[in-house]
């Protein structure tokens, strides 16, 4: 089922510092409210986004990347799509990274699998040096 943009513009947040994490959460909240998501769904989206933005700081080359937030729709549904991208080094073992408790950084290993449970759709694409892109979508109920 194709997802299309509900609005032509996106909000882009640079992710390169702890302060940017706060900014990322604020941006996600504003867009979730604008899409009409309920409080629990807002909280889930923001929390998933916080985990994924933190992954950029922890794992990405130069600890930098980008968050892009868009209002989207698919058939009758509207929602928020958030895309987290960085420029490497990519995820070596994607299956392992999606498993609860797997971590290469000494964390609890909840970031990717936990985030997936909090959103309606999540895709992870990682191609080594060209970096990692994680896309999450939360629909309004």
């Amino acid at each position: 089922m194709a997802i299309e943009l509900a609005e032509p513009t996106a909000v882009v947040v640079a992710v390169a510092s702890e302060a940017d994490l706060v900014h990322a959460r604020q941006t996600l909240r504003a867009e979730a409210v604008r899409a009409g998501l309920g409080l629990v769904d807002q909280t889930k989206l923001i929390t998933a986004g916080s985990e994924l933005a933190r992954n950029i700081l922890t794992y990405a080359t130069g600890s930098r990347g980008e968050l892009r937030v868009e209002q989207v729709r698919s058939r009758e549904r509207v929602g928020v799509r958030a895309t987290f991208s960085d420029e490497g080094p990519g995820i070596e073992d994607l299956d392992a990274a999606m498993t609860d408790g797997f971590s290469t950084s000494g964390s609890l290993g909840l970031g990717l699998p936990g985030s997936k449970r909090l959103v309606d759709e999540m895709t992870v694409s990682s191609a080594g040096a060209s970096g990692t892109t994680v896309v999450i979508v939360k629909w309004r109920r």
Partner: protein
Amino acid sequence: MSHFDRVPAGSPGTGEIIPIMRIGDTLLVALQGELDDTTVVRIEEQLTMEVARTHAKGTLIDVSGLGVVDSFIARVIARVVAMVRLLGSPAVVVGIQPAVAVTLVELGVPMGHLDTALNAEQGMALLRRLRADGNRAR
């Protein structure tokens, strides 16, 4: 007799101040707003020092002002509870927002071992019970 004592624990750079209040022999810290990681870790250190300094008999950590708790913040909260307990002072986390509770459980953050209460008043009652249990065990 309650007496209040405010200790600024915020970062001077950003002008944020997280006060730690002392009510009798209990410390109360209220986390609120958008916390960055550095501030969270600073509060952790400050609270642990403050428990040791004041010989507090218990600590309430009020998180009702947090609309989002991600795994990092949750982990620090669990860690500060463990640290304060090591000092011999029970700590209770109060006021977790319902949406935050739902999210933390789905995210899979282990928080079940924490003593929690719906609000500060019930938290105080829980602290009294924990203290009474601790005294009996001795």
